[in-house]
């Protein structure tokens, strides 16, 4: 998951790397003794770029100014995300700004390290200048990383070479040990005395590795609202995204690719699905709980008028699934929309019998099912 700047910097700090001292605050009415030493930068915490230009990163010289900045930022919307908290940190003065990043090269099965002596907000412009951004693809072992980093910083001024070499070696360890898939520090401040610290932190963690990263698990536990996808994966074992809050068709579907394709096709046909879902039928194991949860979420769509169930069962027993579905529907009685089922695969005949008993017709053709969805939508329109 893409960490908020504050969480990224906390991770770095816990790994022993230097960052500007900072605190995460969710109210302008804070206890002043929580602040680090001033003067400060006040930085809205949303998982998106372009904060500076949107006025969401501001300097503050006194406590009153910090409170004013926070009052302005909290509750503001940036790229359709609400600012729920700000990081207030000690401002770094008179530092050189460099750039350093670590990513994975999936094809080369290696770590790509990128370094620019001149970083900051204009890194995209720098990237156009030949030689300004140095880059190497390195094996993920410590020796190989260190050797490559030595080549990357070779030829820079002694102060920059020493500072960026130290930064890169230590950040490379963090990248590997903490199971990161992106680690970008821009700007990386190099101070006059040759020390460095991370001015920003763009970090993407690997959710699959959360079982061996206690800090990441703690973060997900703490911040369901900030990291809803990771939280859902950790606690519900399925993927759910509201793709259209005003959509009128709820989807109960399995398989990421097929569910995405279904949404693509429905939209192309002028229909408005409310949600993406990969319910993972293979993980239900006879318990309707996950289906109950999912139906509750879908029922929250204010305009949802029909539920389309689309399951391609390579392995899942559709008879058993249909029983679970009926049980789940009965546990969400307030969700009273018509149900259209399109099921293909193992024991589809048993499913047909089960669903028929509740008046739900089973389709095997997706086109037919979509036609039935349209009928229900038309019925839902007031005369």
């Amino acid at each position, binding site marked *: 998951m893409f960490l908020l700047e504050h969480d990224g910097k906390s991770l770095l700090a816990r790994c022993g790397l230097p960052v500007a001292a900072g605190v995460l605050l969710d109210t302008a009415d804070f206890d002043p003794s929580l602040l680090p030493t001033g003067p400060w930068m006040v930085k809205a915490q949303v998982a998106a770029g372009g904060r500076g230009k949107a006025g969401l990163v501001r300097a503050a010289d006194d406590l009153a100014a910090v409170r004013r900045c926070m009052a302005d930022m909290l509750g503001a919307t940036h790229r359709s995300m609400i600012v729920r908290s700000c990081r207030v940190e000690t401002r770094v003065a008179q530092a050189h700004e460099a750039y350093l990043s670590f990513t994975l090269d999936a094809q080369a099965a290696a770590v790509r390290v990128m370094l620019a002596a001149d970083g900051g907000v204009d890194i995209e412009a720098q990237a156009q200048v030949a030689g300004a951004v140095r880059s190497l693809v390195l094996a993920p072992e410590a020796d190989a990383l260190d050797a490559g980093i030595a080549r990357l910083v070779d030829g820079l001024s002694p102060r920059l070479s020493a500072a960026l070499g130290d930064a890169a070696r230590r950040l490379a360890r963090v990248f590997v040990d903490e199971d990161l898939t992106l680690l970008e520090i821009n700007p990386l401040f190099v101070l006059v005395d040759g020390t460095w610290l991370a001015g920003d932190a763009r970090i993407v963690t690997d959710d*699959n*590795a959360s079982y061996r990263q206690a800090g990441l698990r703690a973060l997900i536990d703490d911040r369901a609202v900030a990291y809803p*996808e990771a939280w859902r994966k950790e606690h519900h074992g399925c993927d759910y*995204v509201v*793709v259209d809050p005003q959509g009128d068709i709820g989807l109960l579907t399995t398989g990421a*690719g*097929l569910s995405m*394709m279904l949404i693509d096709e429905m939209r*192309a046909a002028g229909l408005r699905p409310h949600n993406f879902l990969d319910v993972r039928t293979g993980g239900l194991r006879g318990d309707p709980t996950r289906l109950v949860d999912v139906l509750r979420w879908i029922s929250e769509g204010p305009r949802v008028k029909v539920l389309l169930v689309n399951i391609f069962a390579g392995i899942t027993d559709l008879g058993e699934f249909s029983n679970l579905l009926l049980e789940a529907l009965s546990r969400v009685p307030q969700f009273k929309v018509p149900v259209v089922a399109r099921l293909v695969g193992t024991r589809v005949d048993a499913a047909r019998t089960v669903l028929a008993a509740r008046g739900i017709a089973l389709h095997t053709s997706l086109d037919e099912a979509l036609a039935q969805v349209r009928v229900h939508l038309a019925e839902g329109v007031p005369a």
Partner: protein
Amino acid sequence: MIDPGVDRNTPVLVQGITGRAGRMHARRMRDYGTRIVAGVSPRAEVADVDGVPVYATCAEAVAATGATASVLLVGAAQLADAVAEAVAAGIRLVVTPTEGMPVHDALRTRRLVQAAGVTWIGASTPGMAVAGEVKLGFLPEASLLPGPLGLMSKSGTLSYESGYRLTAAGVGTSVWIGVGGDPVKGTRFAELVPFYAAHAGTEALLIVGEIGGSEEEEFAQALIEHAFAKPVFALIAGRSSPEGITMGHAGALVHGRHGSYAAKAEALERAGVTVCGSLDEMTRAVSAWHAARA
């Protein structure tokens, strides 16, 4: 180097055979025709599972049976070690349906299999199959009709649906390989181009891709570089997915233009691929080719 060639005679191991999934899928694969010669499990007290002998280690299983391929049904946390064990034991093809492998584990495992010249399909793959002959993994029989179409897919379910519709239309598959939806994996679309170019039973190719990553673009480049002469069709899921949000697969993430549907479609079309906008369109296009070739 990448060689996913298997047939009904390939001796296959199942690592993790004593687990719930291991037992079920070993039986299903065997019922389909796969020559399951042994299972591997650290549970020393289990001598056999449904008649398949169980060994404590891959090395013992390979020594006793001569297995050359292995299907791994073990947990994500154990997967990297289990692949390494298979490679060390001399297995040449590993298929790993397990979901949730940490990316850094996948990175190291990819380096390991490349160094050993072993072919690794996965992780997060539904598996692979030669229709009517052998399957390694979960591919459903309703979608498996023997025929001349090579099929590669990131997504399991979308490939099932594709195979199902093509089967209904009378178009069968030659070798079907699910490369999986993870960002770092053992075998990428582009790396299979030489195999399908050389594969006599494959007369055309369908790739079932999705947004995110750069595999479709690499694949398009590989088609050009290898002067791939067979017709190629593509179906790409996620055209209408919002940017910056992961839709299920960890790899299915669009940032700006990178990984977008438009970028993929453009690259594929430049390489002469017929990009289909829907399952229906894909089925019609492939069926038309199939009918025309007869």
